[in-house]
């Protein structure tokens, strides 16, 4: 079935199209009058339901899969983000046990994050767990942490050296 009208781009909308009492496609008299093109219900349905080509469906499916993949990561990301904020709050309140637990949640999700690992190490140190602190902070020693956190880590190592009597 072919449509009786063709458009070129950009569309030059025919403002004064002749009002046709019959469907422009099948000549059926039951035309939907609210629309500009005189088409019956069936022909309008046919004209509006344009099937998507297979390639386009494939691209849309890939985008949908990407969206699902992103959605799969939402709980972990938001959980880690909230845990990080909670950890910082606990650290400020000097509740280091809670801070350690929160930062451990973050590190479990993002073990490659130097910032999260550094915060965990600092929380261990301030919570009195020096062994774990040394072990954890040793991992971020050479990695790019933000300046403020790096300074805190350096201060911890200086303090540990001082206490151990190492020059």
């Amino acid at each position, binding site marked *: 079935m072919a*449509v009786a009208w*063709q458009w070129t781009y950009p569309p030059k*909308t025919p403002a004064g199209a002749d009002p046709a009492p019959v469907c422009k496609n099948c000549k059926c008299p039951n035309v939907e009058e609210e*629309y500009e093109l005189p088409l019956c219900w069936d022909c309008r349905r046919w004209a509006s339901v344009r099937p998507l080509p297979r390639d386009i469906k494939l691209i849309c499916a*890939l985008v949908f899969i990407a*969206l699902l993949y*992103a959605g799969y990561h*939402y709980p972990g990301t938001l959980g880690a983000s909230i845990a990080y904020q909670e950890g910082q709050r606990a650290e400020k309140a000097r509740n280091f046990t809670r801070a350690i637990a929160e930062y451990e949640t973050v590190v479990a999700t993002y073990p490659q994050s130097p*910032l999260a690992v550094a915060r965990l190490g600092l929380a261990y140190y301030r919570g009195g767990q020096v062994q774990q602190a040394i072990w954890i902070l040793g991992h971020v020693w050479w990695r790019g942490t933000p300046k403020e956190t790096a300074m805190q880590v350096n201060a911890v190592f200086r303090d540990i050296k001082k206490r151990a009597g190492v020059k």
Partner: protein
Amino acid sequence: MNPAIPSQVVALLTFPGVVLRAAVEVLFCRRLRVAVGEVCYFRFGTPPGFVTHERPANVHQALLIGLGPFFVNSLLAALMAFPFVLPALEFRVSSVQGYILAWLSISIAMHAFPNADETEDLWRAVRSPASSPRTRLLATPLVGFMYVGAVGRLIGLDLLYGLGVLVLPPALLLYVLP
């Protein structure tokens, strides 16, 4: 996009956005039973993708067809990259899949805006006598924004919008979180 980069190159680099925009517009036409004429999902021209359709039956249909793809594309783009941009900003971690999703997100957001002709149709629909004062009041700023986006393509505003959609939601969340 920046005039120094040919629009064909931009279209090729951001083809998912071009295709998705046209597909969403076709789906809106289908949903609203507006007869569709020519559909081009992708081409090396200006605009890179387009959908021609009959004039919608009323202003609300015109607004849905004109603005719907903009909102759908923007929302998809924002949702897609969020779980990878948030940790990149907060924990300084990045991953290959994060970069891929960021590219997809920017591509989709860049083509959220309707082209100049579609914006003109939208403007005509909003200014038509059939449009109620409330619709005009609500829709005029949006259509104005669409105009800015459509014209701003020439100076790279589409890329700026893409980056904004990518970065702003997670950045705002981090700002809001205490």
